[in-house]
């Protein structure tokens, strides 16, 4: 690829995200979404490998259809109410259409099929972008319209996401697919609280971004695309592997790691809204995803020798892990004691 292309694409990604999250008008928000989609596609299909091209095709088709639906829902709303303001989405049909469109964009459960496949086809860093940055604009649209969304529908979709994300990740051996399903189940946590406390949904998203970026960057460092590579990677960077285990458990939401904070606050908020059964259900469903995080954690550091393996051992690389990885890793492990402050800031 031409060396000048990458900065152009990066700037376009930043531009598209900024346009969408700061816009007030539906057409402008749609424009931002389109810019984002068009900018990420070259990044996915950069390698010209059949898998990459396939991932790009799938991503393009779903995203284009979803953003067309977003625009159509806003047109329906405008024809009915004469409003183009994002926060004034009042027409019930367009609310439903928008929920479906954003669910396609995010990969919430009935519309989640594209997400693991696209992640599997793209490089690790692009996969990181897809599961964090590319979810941010649709999520802000959902936050801005959260007052007029249907709580029952969102709760049902959220529970289904948490269930299926955990369930389908169980028999995966590819790290990118596992992380895709983990992203789906985390989206369930975000979606269940969205109507009741949008700030908290945003906080959950931020923390998820921190934790999953740390995991993706660690995996990128040890070049681990499947479980057996992780198994033999402890010779490369032992400390990073030990930290990777803690980061994964944090992603699973075990106290005293950062990942417990969003779960705790969400459960509290749900109980405050008299939704104790839903809180119970989503908490129990998170155990499903704990199972595959635990397997990743076992592979990352716990199954060291005396169990010998037949794989070729990889040796120390001289380069230490980068500073951003270190910062993100410590953030994704140690933030729980600061939770009152973080809750107050967001």
């Amino acid at each position: 690829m031409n060396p000048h292309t990458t900065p152009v694409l990066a700037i376009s990604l930043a531009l598209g995200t900024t346009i969408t999250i700061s816009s007030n008008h539906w057409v402008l928000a749609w424009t931002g979404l389109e810019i984002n989609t068009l900018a990420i596609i070259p990044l996915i299909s950069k390698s010209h490998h059949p898998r990459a091209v396939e991932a790009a095709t799938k991503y393009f088709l779903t995203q284009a259809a979803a953003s067309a639906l977003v625009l159509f829902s806003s047109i329906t709303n405008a024809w009915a109410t004469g409003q183009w303001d994002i926060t004034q989405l009042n027409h019930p049909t367009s609310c439903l259409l928008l929920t479906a469109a954003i669910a396609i964009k995010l990969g919430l459960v009935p519309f989640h099929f594209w997400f693991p496949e696209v992640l599997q086809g793209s490089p690790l860093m692009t996969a990181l972008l897809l599961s964090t940055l590319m979810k941010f604009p649709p999520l802000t649209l959902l936050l801005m319209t959260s007052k007029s969304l249907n709580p029952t529908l969102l709760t049902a979709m959220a529970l289904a996401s948490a269930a299926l994300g955990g369930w389908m990740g169980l028999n995966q051996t590819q790290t990118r697919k596992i992380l895709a399903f983990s992203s789906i189940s985390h989206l369930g946590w975000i979606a269940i609280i969205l109507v009741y406390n949008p700030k908290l949904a945003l906080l959950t998203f931020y923390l998820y971004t921190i934790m999953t970026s740390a995991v993706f960057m660690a995996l990128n460092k040890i070049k681990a695309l499947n479980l057996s590579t992780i198994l033999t990677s402890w010779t490369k960077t032992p400390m990073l592997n030990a930290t990777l285990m803690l980061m994964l458990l944090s992603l699973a939401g075990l106290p005293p790691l950062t990942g417990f904070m969003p779960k705790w606050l969400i459960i509290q908020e749900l109980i405050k809204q008299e939704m104790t059964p839903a809180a119970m259900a989503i908490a129990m469903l998170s155990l499903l995803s704990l199972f595959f995080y635990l397997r990743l954690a076992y592979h990352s550091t716990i199954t060291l020798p005396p169990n010998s393996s037949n794989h070729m051992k990889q040796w120390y690389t001289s380069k230490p892990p980068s500073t951003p990885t270190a910062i993100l890793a410590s953030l994704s492990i140690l933030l729980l004691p600061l939770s009152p402050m973080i809750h107050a800031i967001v």
Partner: protein
Amino acid sequence: MSPLHLSFCSAFVLSGLGLAFHRTHLVSALLCLESMMLSMFVGLTMWPIENQTPSFTMVPIIMLTFSACEAGTGLAILVASTRTHGSDHLHNLSLLQC
């Protein structure tokens, strides 16, 4: 619901259904996407006429521009996937399935 509204809504819904259920060729999927865009173009052009808001007349052009970009990207992807997968059949895209 005016006949005009009905016509572009049904055009959108029909092409959306075509995209969702007629999964044979990538070209047909792209065509469906394009016709979704065009039906929305009709909706966007008719809205300022109905509501007498001339300041809105720029919007359909912007939208058309982006849909043209999108169609271009779609064609590029069509070429790329035909080169890597041999044809534009959508069921060939099965390398990444779970």
